[in-house]
């Protein structure tokens, strides 16, 4: 009897584990789906002294993994734009912390590798590929800023002499628990782009680690529970769907198994096709040729309770408080809106996107490109497209506005040496000229010695935080004057006043008014005439 109850319980437990498989991004999945229990591999049953040692162990079975990764943007931080220009984190200047160059040891905390501390990093060494940052399931693997992507395995004081002690990471147990990637893995870097939670993207922040349905219908932890890779379908470690190579327009249908596709699998259309709305709302399907799905289905970004940065003014950086220490200011909710190291921020939640025509081409202003300080902000990057080019869709974007250092004589954006414990890093010394001189020298670019500040703008596609259908935009959100698409030119939007022909409005209403006035005058005449007669 007792035995029977026990086995019944065991079976129940197994069933539960199966049912719960979708909820946890890993543990139960692994038990049921993976053919390997990494804890049983002898090569992983050891204490690892460093990240590369773990990678060496991984490569004993996964022989091709490192070489696959070394082909990726994740590894190279480099992207060749279709216009021939060299992009990628390594080369571009942005309007957040502005440049990776000259700040490698800090920025490469988020590199999928170990030891990229300067521009002499050897990209061909296989053991420098970091497997764990993407495959950890314990949530305990982390890399501290300042170590060039290395993981701290012994208690370390950092910065030296600061008294700040970093806790060591035990690599053995982490290596024994590896599995497929989850939102937590990708999020470890992508939620924190721009230097903090939600700062950069607006549609990616830590609230997506375990979101509810109202925040994202696909990643809903209690529902679909998509991992990032569910859409960013990765094969051979090649992750599709980079914003550097965006697919603005996908005219394809929903994908079928067994068929081969050469296009980007991360688009909405790759699952939902071109006519996703039900018969009762069929008119909505008439929008899919011009309006990106995201436009209606992501009514606002930064909806998960984490604010995103909307603007960043570096020109105010460097203020010291009365105590002589770098100043920090917070808003009413206690969120930082000024630091001496970074200047002034505007942060916001539940932000309504701006909308632009986008055809997938993005142009950049790179180091050395001539820029002018004027009425128009310098475009760090810009989404190209128009109503007339027949390959653009209306897309929601976050426009991030900045004011950042540039060289007013050579008229160029600049590389700034931000982070470091030396006496030129801006975050240590608050001296722009010194920090820019070192930064520019590090990439061999000319610098006049003068620093001024220029207004800049960058665009970020809004494509995550897809709301449930009931929260999608309603017709009048666009079909009205002064509505969301007010500034989108080149298309006739019924209900938008600025699309009306002024002369037709004047003549039309005048005609109606004349008819009415005629009737009133004529009628009054008849009444008066009748009174006179009787």
């Amino acid at each position, binding site marked *: 009897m007792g035995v029977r109850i026990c086995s019944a*319980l065991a079976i*129940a*437990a197994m*069933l*539960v584990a199966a*049912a*719960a498989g979708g*909820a*946890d*991004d*890993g*543990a*139960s999945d*692994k*038990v049921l789906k993976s053919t390997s229990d990494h*804890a049983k591999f002898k090569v992983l049953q050891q204490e690892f002294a460093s990240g590369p040692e773990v990678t060496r162990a991984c490569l004993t079975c996964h022989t091709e993994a490192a070489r696959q990764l070394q082909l990726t943007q994740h590894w190279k931080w480099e992207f060749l734009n279709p216009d021939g220009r060299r992009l990628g984190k390594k080369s571009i200047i942005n309007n957040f912390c502005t440049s990776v160059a000259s700040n490698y040891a800090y920025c490469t905390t988020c590199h999928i590798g170990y030891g990229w501390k300067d521009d002499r990093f050897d990209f061909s060494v296989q053991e420098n590929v970091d497997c764990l940052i993407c495959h950890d399931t*314990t*949530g*305990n693997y*982390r890399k501290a800023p300042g170590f060039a992507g290395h993981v701290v395995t012994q208690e370390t004081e950092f910065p030296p002499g600061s008294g700040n002690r970093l806790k060591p990471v035990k690599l053995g147990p982490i290596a024994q*628990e590896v599995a497929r990637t*989850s939102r*937590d893995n990708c999020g470890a870097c992508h939620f924190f782009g721009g230097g903090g*939670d939600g700062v950069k993207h607006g549609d990616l922040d*830590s*609230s997506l*680690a*375990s979101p*509810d*349905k109202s925040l994202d219908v696909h990643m809903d*932890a*209690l*529902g679909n529970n998509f991992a990032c890779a569910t859409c960013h379908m990765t094969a051979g470690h090649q992750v599709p769907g980079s914003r550097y190579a965006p697919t603005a327009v996908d005219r394809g249908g929903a994908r079928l198994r067994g068929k081969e596709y050469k296009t980007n699998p991360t688009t909405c259309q790759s699952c939902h096709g071109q006519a996703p709305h039900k018969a009762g709302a069929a008119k909505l399907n008439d929008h899919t040729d011009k309006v990106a799905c995201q436009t209606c289905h992501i009514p606002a970004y930064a909806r998960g*309770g*984490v604010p995103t940065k909307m603007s960043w003014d570096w020109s105010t950086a460097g203020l010291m408080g009365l105590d002589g220490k770098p100043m920090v200011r917070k808003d009413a909710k206690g969120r930082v809106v000024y630091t001496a190291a970074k200047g002034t921020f505007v942060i916001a939640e539940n932000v309504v996107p701006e909308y632009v025509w986008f055809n997938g081409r993005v142009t950049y202003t790179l180091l050395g490109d001539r820029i002018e300080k004027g009425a128009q902000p310098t475009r760090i990057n810009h989404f190209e497209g128009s109503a007339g080019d027949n390959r653009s869709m209306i897309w929601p974007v976050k426009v991030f506005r900045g004011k950042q250092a540039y060289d007013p004589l050579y008229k160029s954006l600049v590389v700034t040496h931000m982070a470091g414990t030396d006496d030129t890093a801006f975050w240590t010394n608050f001296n722009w000229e010194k920090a820019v001189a070192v930064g520019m020298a590090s990439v061999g670019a000319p610098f006049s010695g003068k620093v001024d500040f220029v207004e800049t703008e960058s665009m970020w596609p809004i494509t995550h935080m897809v709301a449930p259908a009931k929260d999608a935009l309603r017709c009048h959100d666009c079909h009205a004057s002064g509505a969301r698409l007010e500034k989108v030119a080149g298309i006739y939007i019924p209900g938008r006043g600025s699309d009306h022909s002024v002369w037709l409005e004047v003549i039309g209403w005048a005609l109606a008014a004349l008819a009415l006035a005629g009737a009133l005058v004529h009628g009054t005449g008849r009444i008066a005439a009748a009174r006179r007669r009787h």
Partner: protein
Amino acid sequence: MTKTVYVAGVAALCLLGIGLHAIDAHAAGGDWKRGRVYYQKVCTDCHTAKAGGAIAPNARTMADWTAYLNADKHAKGKDSLRNYASREYRASVKGTNKAAEKYADVPDEQLFNDIRSFMLKGAKDGDSPASCN
């Protein structure tokens, strides 16, 4: 003071799992991600609505949480903490709580262990301190 007791209450949710390690090495550690979902969507939701606010795992140390979890006291000792991770409790709120519904049939001890894993991991001195965001 009151807050501490609430903390104790939430903390106590997570005790069980002691008898579990025989089954599987992974289960012994608990599924912290499932624990996270339950902590956020059941414990925190109710605390936010009825008990004056959320309590972040990183508001307490691992030792604090362990003590609370072992004490098994909720709402100033009025009831058992484990009750709030039990199948009976989940059944009673599953009409209005999706997490309770989804995990309706997870064995009590397994779920309790999951929650404990998340809380200890997210504690102030845990492996990855977790705030309420």
